[in-house]
Structure formats: structure tokens, C-alpha cells
């Protein structure tokens, strides 16, 4: 029965940081943002085709905003006839897919067209995009009919490096996702991201750093297309060892054993009598000097 199918919602968050992609295009011209978007589109189509009740959302994570590429506010599902004249793709594709693809392309074009260069905003707003994804998931789950189940997951395709300033927001998003039983998967194109490793570990998703960018779509379809339930039946790359060490507040070194201020809980690698964060004074009692015991001389008989 169609109404008893479990709905599976996939939200794809694509990192379209124009600065990183622009620099990358000069380094490796064979894999460009267009190819990346093509791969993501194939993945999205495959997801929609797997089951009739699957739902999809795509968010572009820019350095100025997070924008929904699909579904768009300006598009309603019943508007197919209106678009038919302009987007007559004659290859007999499932209409939903062709409409979706066109929509995505249009949105990304608009997004890039309105990009304004600002020097200090060079980092991808990933935490914000994830928060938007969670909100979307929450909204859709509220709009379900009574008795319908929904399983949702987020797939992050990441290109640029981590931004340390987003750490708090990131962790909040991760814990919110964990509470909502939303998986976060990560497909990393370039450099390893500690934050995403933590996200995947905490929520139960998969983290993969791909060696070959040109085969991105193959990795996406092989590893990230199956559902959480189906993954237990498949042989997939094993989970990565996550480095959960804390960083000391003074040098930002990752430490295993350190000192923690009992008032403000800030972590230090060396002992100092005053905590620099909350200015509490600490005293360590010095070991008492033991009097050397006088050895009794045994009278030798």
C-alpha cells in the first residue's frame, strides 16, 4: 500500500564555496563544480527513483548564505504543465526528475549570479546549512499523515576546509541530529574534516574521503545511496577512528592528560597557579618534608 511505505527523506548539503571551487578549478581543471553538481544530481535522481515515497531536498552551502536548490519556494508540484512548454526534455524521462533537474540548475545559476565578493567571508556556512536541513526535516515530519513513518538522513558533500569558528554551532547541530535520529553522512573531496568525522560518529552515519574526485558519482551511489537499514546488509568502508582529544586553551594543542579549572572548566596543558579564564587562584600543597628516620644501630654482639 502506498500509504504504508516508509518515507525516506534525503537532504543533500553541497558545498559550493565559490572561492575554493574557483581556486580548485585552476589546479585541477578536469573536475569542476559543474561536474560535482552533475554527480549530485545523478545521486538525487537515483534516490527519487528508488521508491515512490522517497523525498529529497538539496541545499547549497555558500559562504554568504545557505540556499535551497530543491524544492524551491516558487515551484509547486502541480505546476508541471506550466513548465512543459519551456523545458521540453524530449528524452522521455520521468517528469519529476526532469523538472527537478531543471529547477536545480536554475537555482544554482541564480545563486552564483548574485554572489558578491566580500573579503572576510571566505568560509563555507556549513553549520547553518545543517541547521536548515534539520529544520526542513522537522517541518516535513510534522506534515506527515497520521501513521506515516519517516526516516531522514543528511548527506554532506564537502569541499573546502573546516572553519574553527563554527565549532559550537556545529556541535549543537550534531547533538540535535542525534536526538532526532537523523544520520549525517559525509563525503569529503579534499582534506579531512574533524568536525564531520565527529558528526558521523555521533549520529551513526558514514564518513568517506574519496581518493578520486572524477568518480564521485560512483562513490555516492555505492556508499551513500542505501538506507540505514540496508547498510547493515552491505559491506561498506569501515568507520574511521575519530580523534576526540580536547585542545588546551593556551596553545590549542590536542592533549590527552591535562589540568582542568574546577570553576570554569577550561583546559590547560600546564599547571599555572591562576586560571587565565576566570582568574581563580589555586594552591597545590607541597609534599611535606619527611624527617629522615634515624637508623638505630644494632649493637653487634
Amino acid at each position, binding site marked *: 500500500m502506498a500509504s504504508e511505505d516508509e518515507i525516506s527523506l534525503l537532504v543533500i548539503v553541497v558545498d559550493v564555496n565559490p572561492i575554493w571551487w574557483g581556486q580548485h578549478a585552476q589546479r585541477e581543471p578536469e573536475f569542476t563544480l559543474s561536474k560535482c553538481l552533475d554527480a549530485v544530481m545523478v545521486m538525487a535522481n537515483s534516490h527519487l527513483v528508488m521508491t515512490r515515497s522517497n523525498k529529497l531536498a538539496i541545499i547549497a552551502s555558500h559562504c554568504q548564505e545557505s540556499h535551497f536548490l530543491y524544492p524551491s519556494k516558487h515551484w509547486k508540484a502541480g505546476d508541471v504543465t506550466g513548465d512543459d512548454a519551456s523545458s521540453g526534455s524530449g528524452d522521455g524521462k520521468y517528469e519529476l526528475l526532469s523538472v527537478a533537474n531543471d529547477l*536545480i540548475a536554475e537555482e544554482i545559476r541564480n545563486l552564483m*549570479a548574485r554572489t558578491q565578493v566580500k573579503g572576510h567571508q571566505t568560509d563555507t556556512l556549513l553549520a547553518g546549512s545543517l541547521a536548515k536541513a534539520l529544520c526542513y526535516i522537522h517541518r516535513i515530519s510534522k506534515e506527515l499523515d497520521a501513521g506515516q513513518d519517516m526516516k531522514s538522513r543528511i548527506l554532506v558533500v564537502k569541499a573546502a576546509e573546516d572553519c574553527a569558528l563554527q*565549532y*559550537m554551532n556545529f556541535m549543537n547541530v550534531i547533538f540535535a541530529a542525534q536526538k532526532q535520529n537523523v544520520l549525517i553522512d559525509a563525503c569529503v573531496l579534499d582534506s579531512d574534516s574533524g568536525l564531520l568525522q565527529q558528526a558521523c560518529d555521533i549520529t551513526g552515519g558514514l564518513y568517506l574521503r574519496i581518493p578520486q574526485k572524477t568518480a564521485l558519482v560512483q562513490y555516492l551511489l555505492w556508499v551513500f545511496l542505501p538506507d540505514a537499514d540496508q547498510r547493515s546488509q552491505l559491506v561498506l568502508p569501515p568507520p574511521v577512528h575519530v580523534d576526540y582529544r580536547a585542545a588546551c586553551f593556551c596553545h*590549542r594543542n590536542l592533549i590527552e592528560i591535562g589540568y582542568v579549572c574546577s570553576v570554569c572548566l577550561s583546559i590547560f596543558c600546564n599547571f599555572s597557579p591562576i586560571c587565565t579564564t576566570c582568574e581563580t587562584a589555586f594552591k597545590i600543597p607541597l609534599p611535606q618534608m619527611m624527617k629522615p628516620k634515624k637508623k638505630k644501630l644494632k649493637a653487634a654482639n
Partner: protein
Amino acid sequence: MAALSEEVLLVVKRVRQRKQDGTLYLMTERIAWGPEGKDRFTVSHLYADIRCQKISPDGKAKIQLQLVLHTGESTTFHFANESTALKDRDAAKDLLQQLLPKFKKKANKELEEKNRMLQEDPVLFQLYKDLVVSQVISAEEFWASRLKLNSVDHALSNNNKQEVGISAAFLADIRPQTDGCNGLKYNLTSDIIESIFRTYPAVKQKYAENVPHNLTEKEFWTRFFQSHYFHRDRINTGQQDIFSECAKQDEKVSHLSCVKNPMVDLMSLEDKTLDEGYGSLTALPNSSKTVKENSNSAIIKRFNHHSAMVLAAGLRKVEASSDQASETSSTDGNSRDSDFFQPPIKKVKLQEAIEYEDLQNESGPKTIALNLKKSDRYSHGPVPLQSHHYSTSQDIINSVSCIQEEISCYKPCLTRVMSSSAASSAITALSPGGVLMQAGAQQTISQLVSTDVQSELKHLYTAAGELLRHFWSCFPVNTPFLEEKVVKMQSNLERFQSTKLHPFQEKIQREYLSTNLTNHVEEMIQAAYNKFHAWQTRRMLRKT
């Protein structure tokens, strides 16, 4: 003769055992019997071994005493002295009754304790099997450290055990049997007697007063059952009844004293449905009752009193000392209702009704505010400071314009996303054994090794841990006792290694090729050996 060193508590002559005349001796720790004319004892039993004693019923011609041992055997002594046989037998029986309980507890307790500990803790049981049954260490060493710990715990828990209450039907359980013609036979056991004493302390008092001075036990109980105190209708209490006082005492204690809350008025409760008038007609409570109602109310009163006494008996044991105080205070509180002596519960109830906690002023504990100077430190994640890739603004402008150009003419071309060679190399990387799948092989060691090997390994670890704990607790070696223990533990470890560890290693080597399951245990034992050798050499040096 061994008897000379022990203190003899009782000697009974003319006691036959197995058709032989002899003398029975009761000593401090055992009971013994020797035949007439001989010096030694043929029969000797420690009190600890005796499970129970039995006596022959009163009517029989032979006056006998039987001892049943824990092992099941029994020994019978026949008291053959014509005049004093019964007295002798009873004297012996009484003495045994006093002595047996003392020894019973001591001997069994330890064994029971051990059994209980072994049964409750399967890990301990396994450890016991591994170490003691296979004779790596002796049973005494095993129990030496454990019994002390557990006896302390057990003593504490014993104090918190709940008392067994009294069944409310204990009087009904007596169940008189008709004895032929018009007589009733009541079977009283010590349990029932105890219940009666606990529920009716007045009867206990009477018992203490009258037995054994005025009445024998049997006579006391006969009078008890005859008295109308026990029977249903307590109307005729005029006769010379020792229990008439008890009846009077009972009536004094009113039922309402059980209810400690003076705000509850039991008398205003009526068992009436809404009759004519729907409750608007307030009829005065009719004080005159019919005869039938009177007798009913008497029975109901007795039932209530009986139940109240049973409940009170359950509480009485717990509040042994404060019992007197609370009873007197409750009765006093009802009789003297002055403001000075208000029972505390009434005060609490009034207080609760008057005040609301939420509406009071907040007077919480004073707190000190946290004063953070550099709070932005918290928001920086555990990302080590790396040298950022510095891009000039020209770079940024270039990149952005490049991308804008590219995307402005973007058209999805989904038929040529990937070349087949790229796809096949990706598949190879993702297949088992590929580049991305390497980490998986190392993580399945728990799946490679079967569960019984795993559990055997766990047992080995527990046993090794136990031995090593004993070993390391001997250091620093201060006393000669610890020296001996260290040497003994060293030999125990060696024995453990040869009898348990090596066979296990050989077994897994035969079955699995390259798994190193016992490395860590070997390391631990080796560390212990090193310490022992170091200590030994130091001791040699000190001696020379």
C-alpha cells in the same frame, strides 16, 4: 581419657545405649557415653554435629533420648534408672536444648556463608573452580581474604532484615479437635504461643506472673481457652478468671487511639446512603440500638481490637525503645487536649493547610556569579591552529569570477558524468581488500575467535587477576608472614602458567594461526616474576 581436660556439665548414670549399661556425660563441647566399667568413651558427638534431639512421648514405658546428626545417623540413649529416669532424661534434654543452638550457628554458618557466596556470584564460582578445584591454590587461601569482607557486609544486611509479621488468623489455626466425649483438644505449637504473646502483651504478663509459680504451663493454657476472654461473647466475665483483668484492660484502649491524626473524626462517618431528602434532612444519630445490634457491635468491636493488636504487634518490635513513649503520648494526647500538649502531627497538618511554599519569599542560598575574562576560548573547537592558506584578495576575486562564468552557462549533462575506467577503479577501491577497506580486516578479531575461546580467555584473565592481586598485595614485604606468602604466590603463579596458560596457548595455536590473545596475560605474569626476582636478589644482598 580425654574427658579430664574438658569441663563436665552433667553426668547421668544408668543410661543404656545399644543394650549396654553405661554413663552419659555432657561436656562443654560434646556429649559422650561410656559403657559401665570401661574408661573410654565409645560414643562421642560434638554438639556442632548434632542436628536435633528427640524424646520419646510421655506415655511410653521406655524413657529415651535420641540424637540425630547432620549426617543422618542417630544415636538413642535409654534412661534405665527406675526412680529418676524421667528427671534425668529431662535434665539432659534441657541442657542439650540450651547448648545445641550455640554450636549450631557457629559450625554451619561458615559453610552456609561460603555456599551462599558461591551460588550468588557466578564469577566467584568460576574462579573457585579454576583455582581451587584444579589445585592451583588451596581453599584456605582462597577464602582467607574473602570471608572477612563478606561477613561485615552480611552483618550489616542482617540488621536490616524485616521481621516476620503475625498472621491474623493464628488463633483460628489452632482448630480444636473433639476428643471423644465433650472435650476439646487444642494443639499449641511454640509459634502459636509466640504469636499470642506478641499480639496480647497482657496475656504474656499473666503468663510471667502465674507460671511456674501458681499454674503449670498446661493449666495456664487450659484456663486461657476456657476463659471467656478467648471466646466470642465476653458477656459473662464475673467468674474467678485471671483473664478478666485483660478484658478490662483491652476495653480501656480505645480504637481511636490508633489513628494518630487528630484532625480526622471517625465518629462523624455514617454508613448511610442518601435517603429521602437527599441529605438535606439531618437526622440525629440514633443512640438507642436494638439487642441484636448490641451483640453485633460487640463482635465487631472484638474483631477491630484483634486486628489492631495484630498490627500493633508488628510495629512493636521495630520501635522497641520509642514504643513506650509513643503509646503514652498518644493516649495522653486524647485525654488531655490542652494546647500545651498538641500532638505534633496536628501542628504539621495545620501548617500545611495554611501556608503555600510558592508564595513565600525566595530565600535560596547565595551564589557567586562566574566571572569569565576570555570566554571566546570555549567556542574554539579542538582544531589545532594550522597555518591557513592565505589568499590574496585578487585571488578571491579571480576565483569567484571564474566560478560565476562557469555556472552561468551550466547545463546538467547527466549522460556523461563519469568515465567507465574511473567507475571501475572506484569499485575496486570499495571492494573488500581495496584501498578504502583496509581498516575493516583488523577489527574483526572478535568475530574470528569463537565464543567459547573468548569465555575461556575471560576466565583465564579473572584467575590470573586474582593470583596477581594476592601477589602484589604482599609488597612491601615487611613481615615474615608476607615473605612466606610472596614465595607461595610465586609458586602459585608458576603453577598457573604451566597448568592453565600454556595449554590454552597451544590450543589456540593449533586452531588459529596468527592471533596473539595471551600476550597481555604473559606480560602481567612476567612483570610479577621480575619483581619477585628483584626482591629476592635484594634480600640476598641484605643478608650477606
